[in-house]
């Protein structure tokens, strides 16, 4: 008798029901939507915002199809793209009263049309890759050496203030390549400094050196510190990219670390690569440096400097308004010390200004420097795309404490907003370079889906027709198993939210084409058993049992390939590999366990079974032909 125990039948049934459930969202399609997300960590997306959005839409008599609140965004589903655009304007006005200081990003998006009860059990449609939905993909390489140099620069500044605090006289601190050198006049001071640094700067590796008459202490970063800094640089860059992209309102951006020093950025729906690159590449950072007043006042030196020959230890910059300035190379403060930047107005002059808040270390440095340099000029530089510009170079009137700094000076309100935004969005901890870029138009994406779908459909149809004519009822069972395989595979992909790409669809098609192998093996075995004179029931049992070992072996070898591709594949190949591996697992279940369940259901209960509907079984001995 070929009967499954109850638990096995229940398992099969359960798998199919779950498969159906999780495949279901893919059939509902997508509706235009507007997504509201917070761009400031201080503002959370909550029910209050949802009510605000709903009220605004009501006031503008836009009827939404539904408003959903999830962990970090409010999504408003709309009936068509026209109302979508209208709703976006309405919501934008409602949640961001001050356009320049946007608290929320409002973006156009597509959300699944599937009913809420499906969404609540995490049944979501498959996550489509960029090649299927259109958008921009970037692979950015973080310049790790750049991250170290930047860190060493700020260590240099820290050392300066540290030694000043300890009253140690040194002959200058400068960064030389990947190290910081401190010069001394006598060995005693050097020893003292070494002691101080060993206590306060655990990241530094100290070595003595001599250059002519000068004694030097050369500090380099310990390997573990380097590693930490590099890891931090990538994280910091990712955060910065997040902030920037959020400020621009792209729905569902993907920003992920890949490998040690790479960042993947995917912006679905964005078509304008030039703009996207501009967003990513903008590196606005702040530097505070002292003005070399004496040299700046000397017309001869200034003329030379303007021609590209500034005096040693200084850099030539042009102030807003066109006047040149010589700044000392030493950086007092960098944008890293910044905690917030807000646009505003100067209390006295009513000029547009940017208010900066510094962290405690920054505030202390700023206080020290301003106390010691009363009467001197300090320049605030905005460095964008590698070029510095002096925003303002005020004379220090008194010591400035508390870490509140204001930049003002020949800025329009717009400019103040931009500068604040860029500074707030953060600077990059290390420079980045685009090493891979892909843009896929939305029509091409839809085209790819249709092509992938058609290939699978027609291939499946051809196999189904063949199997049913060749193996009759057993062929039908195989087709049922194959359909279940497809169902489970799609359900699994939806459940895992693995990214589906065009090679992924190809892998689905291929998985089906290969999965039929197991059923062919089984059917051929059953026929063979019948040919050798087994009774129908015995033939089913023996056929399935003997085929199993073969099926297992052949699937394991295929799985080895899938895993290798998963480990070493990148981009499109990974998409292929994920589906390939999952497809093997689902095919094992559906073609062996599920198809057996169906066969048992059909034949298992019959005690007297004369023949199986498995097509003609030709026996060499009996046939005349």
């Amino acid at each position: 008798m070929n009967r499954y125990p109850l638990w096995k039948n229940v398992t099969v049934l359960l798998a199919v029901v779950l498969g159906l459930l999780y495949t279901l969202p893919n059939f509902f399609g997508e509706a235009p939507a507007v997504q509201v997300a917070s761009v400031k960590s201080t503002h959370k997306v909550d029910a209050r915002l949802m009510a605000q959005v709903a009220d605004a839409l009501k006031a503008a008599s836009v009827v939404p199809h539904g408003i959903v609140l999830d962990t970090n965004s409010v999504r408003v589903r709309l009936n068509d793209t026209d109302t979508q655009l209208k709703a976006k304007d309405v919501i934008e006005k409602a949640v961001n009263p001050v356009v320049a200081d946007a608290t929320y990003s409002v973006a156009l998006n597509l959300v699944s049309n599937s009913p809420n009860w499906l969404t609540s059990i995490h049944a979501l449609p498959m996550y489509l890759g960029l090649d299927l939905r259109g958008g921009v993909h970037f692979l950015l390489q973080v310049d790790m050496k750049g991250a170290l140099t930047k860190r060493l620069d700020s260590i240099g500044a820290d050392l300066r203030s540290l030694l000043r605090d300890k009253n140690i006289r040194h002959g200058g601190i400068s960064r030389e390549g990947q190290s910081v050198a401190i010069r001394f006049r006598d060995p005693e001071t050097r020893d003292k400094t070494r002691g101080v640094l060993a206590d306060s700067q655990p990241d530094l590796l100290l070595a003595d050196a001599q250059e002519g008459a000068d004694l030097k202490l050369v500090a380099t970063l310990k390997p573990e510190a380097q590693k930490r800094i590099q890891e931090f640089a990538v994280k910091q860059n990712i955060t910065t990219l997040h902030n920037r992209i959020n400020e621009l309102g792209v729905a569902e951006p993907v920003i992920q670390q890949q490998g040690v020093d790479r960042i993947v950025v995917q912006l679905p729906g964005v078509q304008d690569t030039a703009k996207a690159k501009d967003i990513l590449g903008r590196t606005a950072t702040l530097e505070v440096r002292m003005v070399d007043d004496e040299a700046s006042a000397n017309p001869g030196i200034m003329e030379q400097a303007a021609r590209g020959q500034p005096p040693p230890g200084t850099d030539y910059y042009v102030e807003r308004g066109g006047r040149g300035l010589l700044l000392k190379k030493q950086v007092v403060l960098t944008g890293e010390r910044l905690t917030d930047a807000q646009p505003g107005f100067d209390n006295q002059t009513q000029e547009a200004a940017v208010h900066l808040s510094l962290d405690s270390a920054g505030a202390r440095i700023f206080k020290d420097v301003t106390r010691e340099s009363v009467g001197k000029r300090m320049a605030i530089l905005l460095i964008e795309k590698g070029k510095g510009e002096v925003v303002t170079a005020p004379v220090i009137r008194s010591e400035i404490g508390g870490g509140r700094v204001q930049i003002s000076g020949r800025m329009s309100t717009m400019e103040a907003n931009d500068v604040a935004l860029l500074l707030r969005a953060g600077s990059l901890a290390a420079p980045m370079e685009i090493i891979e870029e892909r843009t896929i138009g939305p029509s091409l994406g839809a085209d790819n889906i249709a092509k992938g779908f058609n290939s699978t459909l027609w291939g499946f149809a051809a196999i189904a027709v063949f199997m049913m004519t060749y193996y009759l009822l057993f062929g039908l069972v195989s087709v049922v198993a194959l359909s279940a395989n497809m169902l489970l595979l799609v359900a699994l992909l939806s459940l895992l939210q693995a990214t589906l790409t065009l090679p992924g669809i190809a892998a689905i098609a291929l998985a089906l084409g290969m999965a039929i192998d197991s059923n062919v093996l089984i059917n051929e075995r059953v026929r063979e058993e019948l040919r050798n004179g087994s009774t129908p029931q015995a033939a089913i049992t023996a056929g399935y049992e003997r085929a199993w070992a073969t099926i297992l072996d052949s699937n394991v070898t295929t799985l080895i390939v899938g895993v290798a591709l998963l480990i070493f594949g990148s981009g499109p190949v990974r998409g292929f590999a994920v589906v390939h591996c999952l497809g093997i697992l689902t095919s094992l279940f559906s073609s062996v366990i599920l198809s057996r369940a169906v066969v048992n259901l059909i034949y298992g209960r019959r005690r007297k079974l004369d023949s199986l509907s498995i097509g003609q079984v030709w026996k060499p001995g009996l046939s005349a032909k």
Partner: protein
Amino acid sequence: MEFFRIRKDIPFMRHALTFNVISLVTFLLAVFFLVNKGLHFSIEFTGGTLLEVSYAQAPDLDKLRKQMEADGFTDTQVQNFGSSRDVLIRVPLSKDAETSKVGARVMASLARVGAAADSPAAGVAPTLKRVEFVGPQVGKELAADGALALLLVVCGIVLYLAMRFEWRFAISAIIANLHDVIIILGFFALFQWEFSLPVLAAVLAVLGYSVNESVVVFDRVREIFKKKRGLTTPQVLDHAITSTISRTIITHGCTQMMVTSMLIFGGPALHYFALALTIGILFGIYSSVLVASPLVMWMGVSREQFIQVKVEKQEAVV
């Protein structure tokens, strides 16, 4: 319906030498083409920029080429892609620092063609469908990763088969199937088809897939060795191949149906992927049946290798 009505075992092994010679010749030819012509790697491997643009009306490719040359793009390839209105442009990596901006420059150049042309038909601006830019660092890694993946697959399969079967089976299966891989690559070299990442995936998938075939045959060989006494090794192999041949053909036929469907409906994006699979599947049948089995025979597989375990057990009991 039953396609295969085979009365007696087909004496495949009698012609083993012939098959092996044929394999060797095809293999050497493939190697020859690979060495002589080399593979036509896609920009994913070589680095560079690829643009896919579409026009409302079929553009004059020569004009596009001339304008591109005039704008300082050397060594670019301009060709139709899918239809006469779709154009694919490949720009190799240059020493310029601004490689990531090539896409925008090409589009500007193409727009100039539209503006400068006399006929109104040519004055249509192209729409950008796809841009791909790959820096030089990425390409090298891909090649290295591809090779590593291949190595891992080979080692994994050999180990698994050696464990489940016998080292002789493992070695001959992997030789037979690597020979498939080389032949696919040979085809790609001979016709200068584009070798892209999906093609690499297809090649590796074929490797796994044809190992399947060998596994099915070997599985039978093992079974027959264990069950039936008094058969010579060639007889066992013949019997194993004959009794699995109908399954081999049907399975491959089914998989090929799916792949053919991809070839027809999948469009240019899946074209070479499906092509690689097609060649792989066709040669997979041949190699797993007619290359792997003779190899096993030459390596001297015999019944004792499979029943040894049992003999040892009995001794232990006594």
